[in-house]
């Protein structure tokens, strides 16, 4: 296969999966702002309901800021020397999907996995109460969130979070997250 063919294949694969936006690279605050603006404009153009629009925007803010704050160095053999992430927003028949992927150190991945298992094992009402209790306990991480991000994502999504960790055996894992927002 020629490289030129690969470009089309990549485009075609994204087109089939109804990707509205796709980015791979390192996450900066200005890029984060631009992605939010692009998606907000698109949702306006689609005439999306304010409720769905706000939920997608909120989830996207949390996902992008997770990528910005919690990104770890990828393993050397992954071929990148700066931390690199992937973000995609897709629209399908039932709603939207916000998809992210990033490298994490195994220790951090382990903590996140526990939190995700906890959240996915809860009803919506329990997720709501967990949010309230974590908010009320007053502890704050240095980034300010204090562990509320994933809880808020699950609360706004209303669906179980789909996720996976691919271990690289060198102390790091690739974390993938798929957050759905139904219309």
């Amino acid at each position, binding site marked *: 296969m020629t490289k030129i063919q690969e470009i089309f294949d990549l485009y075609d694969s994204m087109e089939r999966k109804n990707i509205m936006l796709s980015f791979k690279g390192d996450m900066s605050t200005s890029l984060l702002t631009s992605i*939010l603006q692009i998606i907000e404009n698109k949702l306006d153009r689609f005439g999306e309901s*304010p409720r769905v629009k706000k939920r997608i925007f909120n989830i996207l*803010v949390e996902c992008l800021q997770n990528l910005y704050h919690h990104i770890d160095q990828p393993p050397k053999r992954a071929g990148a020397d700066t931390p690199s992430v992937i973000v995609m927003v897709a629209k399908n028949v039932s709603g939207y999907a916000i998809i992210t992927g990033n490298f994490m150190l195994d220790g951090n991945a382990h903590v996140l996995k526990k939190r995700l298992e906890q959240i996915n094992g809860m009803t919506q009402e329990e997720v709501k109460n967990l949010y*309230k209790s974590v908010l009320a306990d007053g502890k*704050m991480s240095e980034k*300010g969130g204090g562990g*509320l991000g994933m809880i808020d994502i699950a609360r706004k999504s209303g669906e179980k979070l789909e996720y996976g960790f691919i271990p690289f055996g060198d102390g790091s894992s690739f974390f993938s997250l798929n957050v759905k927002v139904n219309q």
Partner: protein
Amino acid sequence: MENIRIEGTAKTPTVDFNRSSGVLVIRGRSIPENSIDFYKPLVEWIDSYAENPNDVTVLNMQLEYFNTSSSKCILDVFKKLEQINKNGQEVQIQWHYEEEDEDMLEAGEDYDAIIDIDFKMVKVVEF
């Protein structure tokens, strides 16, 4: 003591804290990456205001969006006001939300449950 007047941006809210009227407004979007930097001066302002507060202090919250990084900082603002209220000067917190934004109403109810001040929920058509 000086008033605070900060123009809003794509990620930070408009802030209007008025010493003489005792009316404080936080309006717009609060989604900065580092909320602590943004809210620290606001919390400090309320600290000095609390030394000699008005008989009635009103906080108008009119948020379109806020991230989880802001949520604890916003709670800190409320806790400072809660203290003024406990000390005997009245504090009112008016939580505005757009009529179709149930999530924002719920967020206000979360704070209302944590803070010992009765929030007034104010429904508006659009900010």
